[in-house]
């Protein structure tokens, strides 16, 4: 990396941390496996007298969880325990909603199962607001997720599977349930045993425990945001739930190991998590020709298995302009994001706690600018 271009990243980061709406910020950049930037700015929490943040802070990674959940599914696929082209109801027979019999596992991975991601949460809440009886929560499942899944099973699809990408959190919770049933252990345990422990990601957890709160970059849930973060009490309970769709808590350094594993083609150090074929399938566009409905219609969704794929269509306020096509990554509600750039052999992590501009429905974040700064710092060989 060009040493002269690392300074501007630090300067911008300090400016961003000063901006109203950015509470906490940790950045990590590594090229050829060498970390050339790993720094923190801002406060740890929203509270008066909050300690300054350090690089060891735990962030609510939100949807960056989905890349991990997808990894879990692929591990089972590699072991011959899961087929992506089988219908989801092969693994979860309780699905009864209209159209769900045609829903395939791979469509959960690409958000093309047919659920309407925007209206589904309200439908689930409405179902749960009525008196219901359903089976007891299995020992390896979390009660909140169990209830959410019970509400999901009778829901009709909004679209035929495989026709439209509609970003859907619950679809990944359903995928996590597939992982639980096929593996026989809790989703959080499976991920810990098969991904976090082998990779040495000791600071990554699905569901936050009370002992971790002192290093948690906690947001003020009174800040206008998505309906999930309704108020501080709701948020405090929410973070304890190991949502496969968004309940991941990790440090930037840990997530960088995970990203580097993908850059390496599936292994890190002496541990192989996935084979090259799986990584190739996950990090290419699996839904060519299928559009995405997200703040307007994108003719090509460009999504892999657990990752968005960087392509010609650079999304408003999300995408930088300089990273080359073929990169892949994910972003998370509340201000987390990362990407892998195979062409330049680099990974970069942007963990922040930032606000949402409700009017624009946009993060008040600078991830797009960060992508440009980092890519501009890539140095040629002389």
């Amino acid at each position, binding site marked *: 990396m060009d040493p002269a271009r690392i300074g*501007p990243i630090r300067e911008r980061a300090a400016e961003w941390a000063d901006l109203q709406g950015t509470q906490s910020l940790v950045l990590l950049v590594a090229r050829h496996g060498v970390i050339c930037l790993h720094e923190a700015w801002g406060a740890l929490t929203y509270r008066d007298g909050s300690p300054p943040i350090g690089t060891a802070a735990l962030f609510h990674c939100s949807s960056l969880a989905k890349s991990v959940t997808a990894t879990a599914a692929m591990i089972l696929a590699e072991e011959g325990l899961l087929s992506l082209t089988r219908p989801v109801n092969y693994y979860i027979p309780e699905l009864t909603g209209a159209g769900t019999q045609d829903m395939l596992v791979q469509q959960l991975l690409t958000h093309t199962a047919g659920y309407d991601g925007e209206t589904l949460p309200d439908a689930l809440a409405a179902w749960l607001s009525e008196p219901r009886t359903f089976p007891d929560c299995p020992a390896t499942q979390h009660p909140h997720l169990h209830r959410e899944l019970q509400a999901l099973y009778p829901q009709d699809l909004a679209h035929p599977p495989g026709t439209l990408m509609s970003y859907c959190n619950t679809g990944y919770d359903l995928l996590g349930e597939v992982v639980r049933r096929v593996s026989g252990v809790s989703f959080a345990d499976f991920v810990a045993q098969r991904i976090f422990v082998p990779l040495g990601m000791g600071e990554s957890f699905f569901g936050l425990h009370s002992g971790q709160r002192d290093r948690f970059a906690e947001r003020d849930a009174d800040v206008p945001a998505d309906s999930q973060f309704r108020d501080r009490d709701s948020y405090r309970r929410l973070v304890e739930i190991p949502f496969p769709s968004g309940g991941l808590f990790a440090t930037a350094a840990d997530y960088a190991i995970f990203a580097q594993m993908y850059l390496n083609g599936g292994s890190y150090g002496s541990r192989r998590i996935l084979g090259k074929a799986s990584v190739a399938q996950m990090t290419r566009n699996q839904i060519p020709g299928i559009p995405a409905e997200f703040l307007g219609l994108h003719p090509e969704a460009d999504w892999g298995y657990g990752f968005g794929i960087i392509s010609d269509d650079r999304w408003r306020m999300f995408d930088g302009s300089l990273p080359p096509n073929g990169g892949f990554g994910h972003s998370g509600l509340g201000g987390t994001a990362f990407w892998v750039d195979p062409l330049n052999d680099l990974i970069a992590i942007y963990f922040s706690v930032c606000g949402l501009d409700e009017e624009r429905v946009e993060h008040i974040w600078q991830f797009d600018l960060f992508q440009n700064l980092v*890519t501009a710092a890539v140095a040629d060989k002389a």
Partner: protein
Amino acid sequence: MTNMREGTPEEAGFDAERIELIRQRGAQWAEQSNTQGLVLLVARNGVICLEEAWGDLTGEPDSPPMNTDSIFMLASLAKPVTAAAAMILVEDGLLGLTRPLNYYIPELRGEGSEEVLVQHLLTHTAGYGDERAIAHATDYIMSGQELPPCPEQLALPIHQQLEAYYTMPVEPGPGTLMVYGIAHYVLLGEVIRRISGMKFEDFVRTRLFEPLGMRDSAFGYDDSMQPRFAEMDLTNLVDDVELAKQYTFFAPNAGGGLFGTVGDYARFAQMLANGGTLDGQRILGRAAVGQMMRNQIPGIPVDFAGREYRGNWGYGLMLFDEQGWPWFHGGLLAAGCVSHSGVGGPSFWVDREQGVVGVYFVTCLDLDANTGDLRWDFDLFQNLVTAAVID
């Protein structure tokens, strides 16, 4: 990293006889009745093997001869420079191309303008095409309505047209159709001014012209240029010559107000050909230059002065595919070459693969790029140079 220097055709990688043929053609082209004067420059891998002038500097009877250091009114050759200036801010993490334009210019209030992203300005796909924009700005300025005070960093004609563009409805929706329009780049210049906190022309001078050693280049006409200025009669090229000079060509207009010499522009072009660096100076990185030079309008149709075209465009650069743009491409350049032209004919191209830079500065009195009726030789010049490349 290629340093620019003079050399022989052989040193540059050209067939010497074919370079000599270009000299013959240059003399012939200068004799055509609609061409006042002409300067050509050919370089490969940073070695300039031809830099020559023919004809007269101006249309006056006592005009001195055209010279290789004559200063041309470069009009839209401003746009690649403005695009590069924007990319400098992108690399600095100060400008996001996927951000809405109203993030940087909150006064933007024309109908539909909330959908305009900064990247749409670079590709003329925001909806501020020339015909509509010029009509709108003329009406707005002539209406005599009171405008906010002119900022100290803006020339009044630029301020006036900006205020007009802020109210202009975009048509059609951003990102759906390319309609070439200077307003796109005037707005981009204003974004650069606001982010940098400097006059646009000062930003370009300090971040581009000075590091690149482009000593004879500037936005906006200055009287000091007069002795070397290749002045031409614009009567046949624009409707109102005085207004055109005041608002566009002689103003520090980010879309059309550049002045310079072939040698200077060749340095800018060579920087692009090198992937962002020249003579040890890094202006941009490879990724930024790469984005400037790739097709940023895939699948988007083009309306070029009322005609439907199919063509590629980068950020601030015309981009050739296998067939190129009619009149602008001679047929021999391979896909991936980039180019731009301006009113009156000044043009350049970069062939990254072959390392070739060609600069064609001409004062053509009957040139009207808008109608496609081009009485110039830029396409022929490309063919001559491309045919001279030897390995």
